[in-house]
């Protein structure tokens, strides 16, 4: 089965080509959707096959490389189109193809009747292909194709409603910010390649070769530079501070896109990348710290913004940013497996949440449309009490919300708790650990709060929809609800494959399968880490239990506050707003980060560009060119007056010239 790994990206590619080239002719939505969905579902099946085969092989042999064709060979630089199958990539392909298939299926219903239906599926398939390349690539360059490919698809899909200016803006912003990250990625790649090559004569960007050569890398120094650059790449792709602002805007895309790209898969690419190169990242304690701090900061920062948003998708978007922050916190504290674990669970529940919100929006849109209302179908202030009209959506949504809030028993709890615990206990950052944990915990509290705020505003309370539209509200069709149900289920139980050791021991020593599974991948990184950080300094069972309990309490506190504010005492939010207007405004406007960026980068760039063009290029550079021409022409105009037309003038010049020559040579 390993040998067939090439099928995994190929199938979506075929889907893309078929839909992209012939979709317009096919017209039949079922066929188009079917092709798209089957393509990715085929990949899913292959992935399953690989997973099964891998389970069957011994952990040491769970690495498989497959070269498809040589890509760029130039001198000592060699990058093949080649795939790497190892436990980490298997996890990723499972998530991508699995969640992807569901979202494809969902899209058939959601995108029904949209203009450019085929286009959507083509893009979606293209995205899946890119994402699969990203996770399967056996070298940095193939990863980079995927890396930029997903960026492209993200661009295309965000700009799906291209006639809306906001969509175009958002798409462009997403791509450009990703490009900033890609710039970092490239520089990181160059640094690594160059350093290893010129110092150790190992010219490679192949992950496995890098892994073998990683012991030659120093701790810190150049590795810090390289990894920081890579991390810049990760912040771009995974919407971390400072490059996070594109993700909320990316909600301009259709909701399945948000679910697939901006929640489940693409945005986690940064996390995956760090995981993939954990053995390098760990060699730079400074980078690890930066990652952890940025992750934590993003987690809390986005969470605060999420509390004040009214657009249902934007809340989820900030939630995503925040959750990604958690993942980075995990990576930064050396909890690689936990990070990946959270990545997976997050894919489940966040995809479910997005799809649920999509279902809601779908219904709202339908209803509002039929009521000829121009209310915003995504604004939670226009919703309320939807749980009756949309039970399945509601339940799945709720399950996912509970999962994300970190209520024990649901997937989010296991992963998030693991992260928080490791942030607290892992030895890499000394005293900072406590702070990181604290921030994470507060962010978790906020998460619970805004997620339940969302649920309460949307599904509970009074129905704020116009009465006329109300009657048109109904549950979404099966094609939409089936994915919801599957994802809801996964959100609920998906966490059990990664039971914390502590809990596993309660149930008779069930190991943390997930960590075990990824162990071969992260083993080396841990070893490197332990060379400079003492293990188990804080390890304390009681403490772990305590912290676990604490995080549950924190989640509950968040939920309670949300309950208080949005169910029990609905005036509270208003009061709160009027008490701290500045704070609310700031939070509501995302801390004015977009404005800050405009002020700091965008506007100066445009102004500078304008200056360079009109003030420098045209005036100075071209001015010199034209100036020279003008001077020559000017001289020409002046000199032509030497030809006065008078013979005696001419004779004078001749005589004077002769005398000058004679005088010069005779008397010099």
């Amino acid at each position: 089965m390993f040998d067939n790994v090439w099928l995994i990206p190929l199938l979506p590619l075929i889907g893309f080509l078929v839909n992209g080239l012939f979709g317009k002719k096919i017209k039949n939505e079922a066929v188009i959707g079917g092709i798209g969905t089957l393509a990715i579902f085929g990949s899913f099946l292959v992935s399953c096959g690989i997973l099964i085969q891998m389970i069957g092989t011994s952990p040491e042999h769970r690495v498989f490389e497959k070269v498809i064709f040589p890509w760029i060979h130039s001198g000592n630089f060699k990058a093949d189109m080649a795939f790497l199958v190892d436990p980490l990539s298997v996890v990723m392909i499972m998530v991508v193809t699995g969640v992807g298939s569901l979202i494809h299926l969902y899209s058939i219903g959601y995108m029904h009747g949209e203009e450019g239906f085929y286009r959507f599926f083509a893009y979606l398939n293209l995205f899946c292909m890119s994402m699969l390349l990203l996770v399967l690539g056996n070298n940095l360059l193939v990863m980079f194709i995927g890396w930029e490919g997903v960026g492209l698809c993200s661009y295309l899909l965000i700009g799906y409603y291209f006639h809306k200016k906001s969509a175009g803006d958002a798409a462009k912003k997403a791509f450009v910010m990703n490009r900033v990250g890609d710039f970092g990625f490239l520089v990181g790649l160059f640094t690594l390649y160059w350093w290893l090559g010129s110092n150790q004569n190992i010219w490679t960007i192949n992950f496995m070769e890098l892994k073998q050569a990683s012991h030659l890398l120093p701790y810190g120094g150049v590795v810090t530079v390289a990894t920081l650059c890579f991390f810049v790449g990760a912040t771009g792709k995974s919407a971390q501070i400072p490059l996070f602002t594109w993700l909320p805007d990316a909600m301009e895309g259709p909701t399945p896109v948000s679910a697939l790209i901006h929640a489940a898969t693409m945005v986690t690419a940064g996390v995956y990348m760090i995981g993939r190169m954990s053995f390098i990242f760990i060699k730079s304690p400074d980078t690890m710290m930066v990652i952890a701090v940025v992750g934590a900061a993003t987690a809390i920062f986005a969470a605060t913004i999420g509390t004040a948003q009214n657009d249902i998708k934007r809340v989820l978007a900030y939630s995503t940013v925040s959750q990604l922050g958690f993942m980075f916190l995990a990576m930064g504290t050396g909890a690689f497996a936990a990070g990946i674990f959270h990545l997976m669970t997050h894919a489940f529940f966040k995809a479910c949440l997005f799809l649920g919100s999509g279902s809601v929006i779908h219904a709202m849109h339908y209803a509002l449309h039929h009521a000829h209302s121009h209310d915003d179908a995504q604004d939670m202030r226009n919703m309320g009490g939807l749980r009756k009209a949309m039970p399945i959506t509601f339940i799945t949504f709720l399950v996912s919300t509970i999962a994300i809030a970190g209520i024990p028993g649901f997937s989010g709890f296991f992963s998030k708790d693991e992260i928080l615990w490791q942030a607290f206990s892992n030895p890499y950052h000394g005293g900072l650990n406590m702070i990181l944990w604290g921030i994470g915990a507060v962010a978790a509290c906020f998460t619970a709060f805004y997620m339940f705020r969302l649920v309460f505003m949307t599904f509970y309370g009074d129905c704020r929809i116009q009465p006329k539209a109300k009657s048109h509200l109904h549950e979404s069709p099966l094609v939409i609800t089936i994915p919801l149900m599957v994802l809801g289920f996964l959100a609920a139980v998906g966490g059990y494959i990664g039971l914390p050791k502590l809990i596993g021991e309660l149930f008779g020593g069930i190991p943390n399968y997930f960590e075990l599974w990824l162990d071969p991948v992260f083993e080396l990184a841990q070893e490197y880490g332990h060379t400079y950080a003492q293990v188990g300094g804080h390890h304390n069972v009681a403490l772990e239990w305590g912290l676990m309990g604490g995080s549950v309490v924190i989640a509950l506190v968040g939920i309670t506050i949300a309950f208080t504010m949005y169910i029990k005492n609905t005036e509270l939010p208003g009061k709160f707003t009027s008490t701290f207007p500045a704070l609310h405004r700031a939070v509501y406007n995302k801390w004015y980060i977009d404005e800050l960026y405009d002020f700091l980068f965008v506007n100066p760039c445009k102004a500078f560009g304008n200056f360079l063009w009109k003030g420098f290029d045209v005036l100075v550079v071209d001015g010199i060119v034209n100036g020279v021409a003008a001077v020559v022409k000017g001289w020409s105009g002046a000199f032509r007056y030497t030809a006065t037309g008078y013979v005696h003038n001419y004779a004078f010049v001749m005589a004077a010239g002769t005398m000058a020559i004679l005088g010069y040579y005779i008397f010099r």
Partner: protein
Amino acid sequence: MELALPQLNFMAIMPETVLSVVAMALLLINVLVKGEEKAYLGYLSLAGLVGALFSIPWGAKISGFSDMVLQDNFSAFFTVIFILCAGLTILISDGYFKKEGCNHGELYPLILFATVGMMFMAKATDLMTVFLGLEVLSVALYILAGFNRANTKSNEAGLKYFLLGAFSTGFLLYGMALIYGATGSTKIVKIAAMAAQSSAVMNNPMFLAGMLLMATGFSFKIAAAPFHMWTPDVYEGAPTPITAFMSAGPKAAGFAAFVRVFVIAFPTLMPQWSELLWILAVLTMTTGNIIALSQDNIKRMLAYSSIAHAGYALVGFTAHNASGVSGIMFYLLTYTFMNIGAFAIIILVGKKGEPNNNVQDYAGFGVKHPVLALCMSIFLFSLAGIPPTAGFIGKFYLFAGAVQEGYIWLAIIGVLNSAASVYYYLRVMVFMYMKSPEEEFDWVKLSPAIMLCILIAVAGVLIPGIIPNSVLNLATLSLP
């Protein structure tokens, strides 16, 4: 006392003899030919030119008339240039002078006599022959410039040329006198020998001054700055075929005499005249090109351009090595083709009295007469020195000669000038091709003669531009 005739060697002046005889015969025949049929005189003179061409004894070194002349390849090469120049001029003359209403039969003998003068200049090995050849040429040219005597411009051109020419003759003669005084001879070989033998001659200021004064005299003839001032006025005013003739032939003759006299008679003063020529070359190129930039009258523009070209040729002369001098020869030959070709087109475009010789009058010529415009473009590109035309090869040799001798800056100034010159050549093409036509150009009538001229000129520009080997080799073999 016996009158001892020296070895005469008529072979040495064979082409001149042929041409003189034909010219004199034409003067007689002219009486018999009616006004409309003067073209026959042209054909006859062409025949004479062809005869002269075939009477050139190639490869021989014949000195005759007590070393007054030397028939060698150098003079043969230049003779070819003069004959071509005269022939092409005659081809474009008939139509023009008919249009202007002054197709007097004397035109052809005068052109032939001028050619004879040039030939003598090219083969002169005695200052006296140089002087007399130059005067035959000049006097004929004064007449030709003022040939269209009903036209004030032509009058003015003739008179101006005459006054300034006579003035410059004074300087040239004075120089010759001083050389004579310093060396006791007017034979260039003797002059060189004297200078080489005796340091007294070499150190005599008179010798140096004579050389310099002769240089100014020749500079006038080849229109080198600052002795170029007559050129634009005379070129503009003279009848166009004569302008074509003047810009190519006499310039070549001037260079022929200049080069031969200076290279053979004054090798000892080489540092001085080389330096002088350096300065003259720079001045000439720059003045010519700069002023040409702002000219509207195309004849005047080509006059300045011809000044500039004299400057380029002076670059080769400054170097006066094999590449440089053969470059001069090649360049002057091809310059004859391109310049007369260009003037042929100007003649075609010109109306009676030449009221429309401005660049602006060429607007849309390329649309109405694509073939003629193409030819004009070829000539102009060649003048600008752009491959694959002969103008480029010529310039290459000239500048390469300079580079070879280490005159890098001279070559650089030369090419920069060349780049600037592109502007005004392109300007003509801008009007021909890139402006919409305002006139129908229905007066443009192609006669077989002018067609032949243009055809020869195009061939003479393109063939040496693409396969310059034979011409270049000939030039190399013909070094003085």
